[in-house]
């Protein structure tokens, strides 16, 4: 009974409480918003102050004023063209240490006992001549390695000769120019033909055969050409493809070229 009679009162009270709660929430929101607006307006004021200060600094340090200071005190001028660097390398070059005599280094007299120290340095040539080395030092190993390379290069040389000889006879301008003096010195067609035949017969000893030939001819004509020849040959060797020197392939290749011709 009592609960039923007070029901309406409860309803009213709960409604009022809910309304009050809502109102408090909105009040809270409004006060937060007001604080935010305060901050915003302070920011605007600060911006205005910043602007005033910037303007003042900018006006006091205006370019014409700087120019006047420069004319009076600093005397700076525009950099010349050679004061510009194009990259890190040029910069590093500037920083390279200058070579100076090192005064703290120990004084070495001209009559210092050097020979004892040079003895191990002089060993390798003695090894080469045939006498058994006293100890197998790394020096000897190195030497052997270089020897082996020389033997390997022998077939390579012939391989290099062949395609270039062919190229020379065809109309390539660059190679033609290089061999021009040679051509004028000796009969080109004939010599080339001889060479090619020899190459066709034997791959390995071609150089041994061809060099005395040229040398004989050159001793008649001109000496400097010999050196030139040697130089050009060396250059050709340098161009060799290490995969090329296969003797069987060689002869076949050279034959093919000969057939073409």
């Amino acid at each position, binding site marked *: 009974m009592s609960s039923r009679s007070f029901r309406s009162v409860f309803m009213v009270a709960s409604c009022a409480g809910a309304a009050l709660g809502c109102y408090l929430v*909105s*009040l809270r929101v409004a006060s937060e918003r007001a604080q935010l607006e305060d901050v*915003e*307006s302070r920011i605007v004021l600060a911006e205005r102050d910043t602007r005033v200060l910037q303007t003042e600094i900018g006006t006091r340090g205006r370019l*014409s004023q700087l120019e006047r200071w420069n004319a009076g005190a600093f005397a700076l001028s525009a950099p*010349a*063209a050679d004061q*510009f660097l194009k990259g890190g390398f040029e910069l590093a070059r500037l920083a390279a240490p200058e070579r100076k005599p090192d005064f703290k280094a120990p004084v070495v007299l001209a009559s210092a006992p050097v020979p004892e120290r040079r003895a191990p340095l002089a060993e390798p040539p003695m090894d080469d001549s045939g006498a058994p080395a006293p100890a197998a030092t790394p020096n000897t190993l190195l030497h052997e390695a270089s020897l082996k390379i020389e033997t390997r290069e022998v077939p390579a040389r012939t391989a290099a000769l062949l395609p270039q000889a062919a190229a020379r006879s065809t109309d390539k301008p660059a190679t033609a120019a290089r061999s021009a003096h040679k051509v004028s010195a000796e009969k080109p067609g004939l010599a080339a033909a001889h060479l090619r035949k020899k190459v066709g017969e034997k791959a390995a000893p071609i150089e041994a055969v061809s060099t005395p030939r040229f040398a004989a001819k050159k001793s008649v004509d001109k000496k400097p050409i010999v050196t030139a020849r040697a130089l050009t040959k060396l250059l050709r060797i340098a161009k060799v493809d290490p995969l090329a020197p296969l003797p069987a392939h060689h002869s076949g290749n050279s034959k093919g070229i000969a057939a073409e011709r």
Partner: protein
Amino acid sequence: MNAPSPALVAQRPERLRLVGQRRQLLAVMHQRLMFGMLVFAGMVAIIVLRILYLAAFGDHAGRKEGPTAFVPERGDIVDRNGDPLGRTIDAWTIAIHPGKVIGDKLALAQRLAQLMPEHSADQYFAMLRSGKPFYYLRRRASPDLVDAVNAIGEPGLAIEREPDRLYPQTSLAAHVLGFTDIDGHGAAGAERAFDKYLADPATRGQPLTLSIDSRVQQALETELGQAMQHFSAIGAAGVIMDVHTGEVLAMTSMPTFNPNAAGHATPDQMFNRATLGVFELGSTFKPFTLAMAMDSGIVSGPGQMYNCPQVLPAYGHLVHDTHPFGRRCSVAEIMMESSNIGMGQIADQLGTVRQKAWLKKMGFLDKAEIELRERGRPLTPGVRWGPFETMTIGYGEGIAVAPLQLAMGYATLFDGGIYHPPTILKIGAGHPIAAGKRVFTADTSYKMRSLLRLVVMKGTGRKADAPGYRIGGKTGTAQKLINGHYSQRVNLTSFAGVFPMDDPRYVIVVMLDEPKATKETYGFTTAGWNVAPVVSRTVSRIAPMLGVAPDINREPNMAEVLPYVQDAKQDAKKD
């Protein structure tokens, strides 16, 4: 009262009528009361609802209607790097209300005269007694003065803050910026041209970004100002433009003024020689004539030969050269030594009709297409434009254009022959580059590179060279028209240069009005002696800032022109 009983006497009809009326009246009254109550209830309900609404959604009482972002009274003007060139600040203003003065007027007048000596005590006293409501005493007063005036303590004195326009760089780019009048409206320059943008509350929050680079502007103004002073010239003008976009990086006219105190400037200082003034710029026009001839198929290349006698008789006149060849000469030599005789012949071959059409295409017959309002209309021979005038225009005499237009012409010639209208606004998202229009062929543009480089390497413009920056260009010395006659002694010298010539990026035009000879110039007043060094010095200052790296080993393809040059004379006396 003894009322008659109703049974005995029948009611009188008037009485009956009265009762009926009363009832009716009562009903009406009830209705009205009801209506009135409803109205009141409605009003109360509206108020209650409004209160509830405000409680729920309204603002609190202490809310400030402040701005959420700072918007200046008038928009800022900044240069292309964002450095301010024009700003509005709050300045102190001192004013007086004579009617509100309560103290001793004579003592106040004496004190004011002490503080602000621009008026005497008598004048201040007259102001105070005049009975007028308001006087401005000082605008843009210094804080010290404001303190002192405030200390007087007179309620009739009004001290207020007013928006005022300030140009922090003072006279830098004064003719480009212009100034505002007392009401804050633009009166000249960019202030006038973009007044609407700067004053509109919707747009003034964003600064107006000009294409001017203040550092470049400063370098140009300093170097040109020094030359003007050194050679005692009466005026000078200079323009630096971006070849590819038409942006004006620097533009100056001298003598200049301080826009912060524009009222003190003389008309001569206000005059913008770079855009409003038109001048006969002389030989700097020759490259255009040559390019026209190349594009028209008259000149095939720098090796074409012309007869260059000592004096060339043409259409009843005589054409002279300062240093005549007296032999046959190539086009390269004509350019290098700036021969009027040679260029006159080329222009003659071109003819009046074609010359007019080309000049129209290049924009030399109309005002320059720049945003500024101060634009001069070019002067041409008009109806007298005959064959001889065609020849003289071929070497730059008889046509007067603004220096800005000359720069525009060079930009066209060296941007592969494409014309872009000049602009003082920075090219960017808000201001895209205007559509270009082809004037010259790209081939002609390319050929002109080595020709103009030759002028600076071996010809009249040698003093314009800055090592490593590959400047190419052309000198121009025009005789000034004084009282209808061309003066032999009074000159107007100019130099139009482009750098770097192997890939043109910037054009620089400088001009000196009536330079005098000095000891170092050996008595000469020609362009090679006075304006060319300005170009050299300015370019060596600005080029590194503009990202042009100096390189001694780079040059345009000089092999195209050098074979056609017979002997390089070692003088820079002509142009």
